């Protein structure tokens, strides 16, 4: 009886948090479409989530592409199919690794920072201060972040795809001697727009997911130093897991 009761209580509690986070997302996305529009704030957030992630995405993409080049060459040469290396690298990066790895890197870099920033704003009473100035904190602080995430992630992912394929080219063609025409030519033929759309759709969802979860965790953090550090850890863990799970769901729906 005790166990059943506590189980029910935990379930209810979790459902409540889920519901609250849903309302939170709705309010912040919905209000992004209402005036006044704060374009400078949006640009600033895109700079933070997007442009400042370029280097980290570049390095991740380059090495992922290079590793794929080596591993792909090794596996494909067992069947004498080295010529298909370009297709393999491009398909795995565009469909899967690009959106997912890019999202994971942005989570680590920007997601944690968003949670910490919002948590500290909460500790120092900046949300009630906004309220007292007749400014909606959700609209002012959260909406630009969510919109910036949805704009930045597809762009970063496109950049990731490009650099990743170049990395595979570097190793496959320049180092291991795969025919250049075969690497690029077959790739162009094999990749369809469906593959690219799928990748972009994923990155849109991840952009929303990252900013939503990290903002919500910061917004609901316990207003103490430990509370904020716990929220930051939780945000990164929860976002990373959600990215992998949502990735599976989207992949199975898109195929």
């Amino acid at each position: 009886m005790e166990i059943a009761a506590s189980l029910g209580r935990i379930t209810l509690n979790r459902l409540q948090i889920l519901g609250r986070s849903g309302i939170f997302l709705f309010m912040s996305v919905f209000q992004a479409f209402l005036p006044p529009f704060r374009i400078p704030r949006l640009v600033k957030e895109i700079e933070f989530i997007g442009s400042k992630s370029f280097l980290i995405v570049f390095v991740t993409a380059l090495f992922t592409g290079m590793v794929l080049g080596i591993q792909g060459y090794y596996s494909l040469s067992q069947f004498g199919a080295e010529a298909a290396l370009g297709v393999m690298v491009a398909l795995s990066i565009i469909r899967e690794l690009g959106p997912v790895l890019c999202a994971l890197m942005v989570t680590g870099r920007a997601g944690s920072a968003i949670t910490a920033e919002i948590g500290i704003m909460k500790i120092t009473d900046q949300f009630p201060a906004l309220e007292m100035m007749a400014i909606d904190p959700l609209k002012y602080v959260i909406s630009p972040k969510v919109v910036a995430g949805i704009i930045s992630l597809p762009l970063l992912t496109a950049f990731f795809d490009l650099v990743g394929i170049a990395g595979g080219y570097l190793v496959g063609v320049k180092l291991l001697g795969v025919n250049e025409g075969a690497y690029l030519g077959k790739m162009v033929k094999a990749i369809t727009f469906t593959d690219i759309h799928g990748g972009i759709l994923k990155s849109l969802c991840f952009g929303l997911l990252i900013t939503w979860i990290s903002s919500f965790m910061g917004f609901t953090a316990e207003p103490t130093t430990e509370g904020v550090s716990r929220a930051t850890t939780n945000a990164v863990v929860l976002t990373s897991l959600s990215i992998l799970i949502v990735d599976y769901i989207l992949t199975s729906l898109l195929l």
Partner: protein
Amino acid sequence: MIKVENLVKKYGNVTALNHLNCRFETGKVTVILGGSGSGKSTLLRQLTGLEKPDSGSVYFDGVNLTTANKKKLYGIRRKMGMLFQGSALFNYLNIFENIAFPLREHTKIADNIIKTIVTMKLEMVGLRGTEKLMPSQLSGGMMKRVGLARAMVMDPKIIFYDEPTSGLDPISTGVIDKLIKDLNQALNITSVVVSHDMESCFRIADNIMILFFGDIIAEGTVEEIRNSKDLRVKQFINGEPEGPIPFTRTDKNYLDEILFR
């Protein structure tokens, strides 16, 4: 100006405000006194509409804040200013932008006029020249003064102060007290001050209200409070450790507890 009727607020089982009735008069400085946990900060959050009470009403110029929708509430808030305990300055904006923030958000005033207004407000709090600094580069007392400049930049009719002098050195306390009094006398701004600083309270107050665990145990002018016969009031204003207001929080008998009875 503000009328509170039958206000009740509970957090879980704890009653923070117990059927309060009170008024805050236009053009007066009213100080809400009380020890820690007496409900004074809670009362302030209800007066500003930051929290909704469990029951009862708060009327601001005849408008009921507890039932007002967001748009109406935000309309009323433009007439309010608030100085937070920790100043609540935006840490990503410099001092100038912090003070200019409400103007930029709510008005279409040209940049050079904003600059004039901000300079005037900074002069009032004696901090001209700090425009380019970030909040983290200021001391606690200076941050409070910047917070006050920001609170009055929209020329509010009422300013709420949440423990404006706690944690400040005597000179900063004196400066803040003088600012509160000056603002009230020069601009006729109604002030509501939450405090537990007796000295500063007697310096600035027109009216005093003493809260004790969610109840108002005394209210009146400074003289009336000073001459009050109520033992609890006497204990509070003299800061006596022994008296009708208990220091310990538990009902359990001390002897019982240490002897495991």
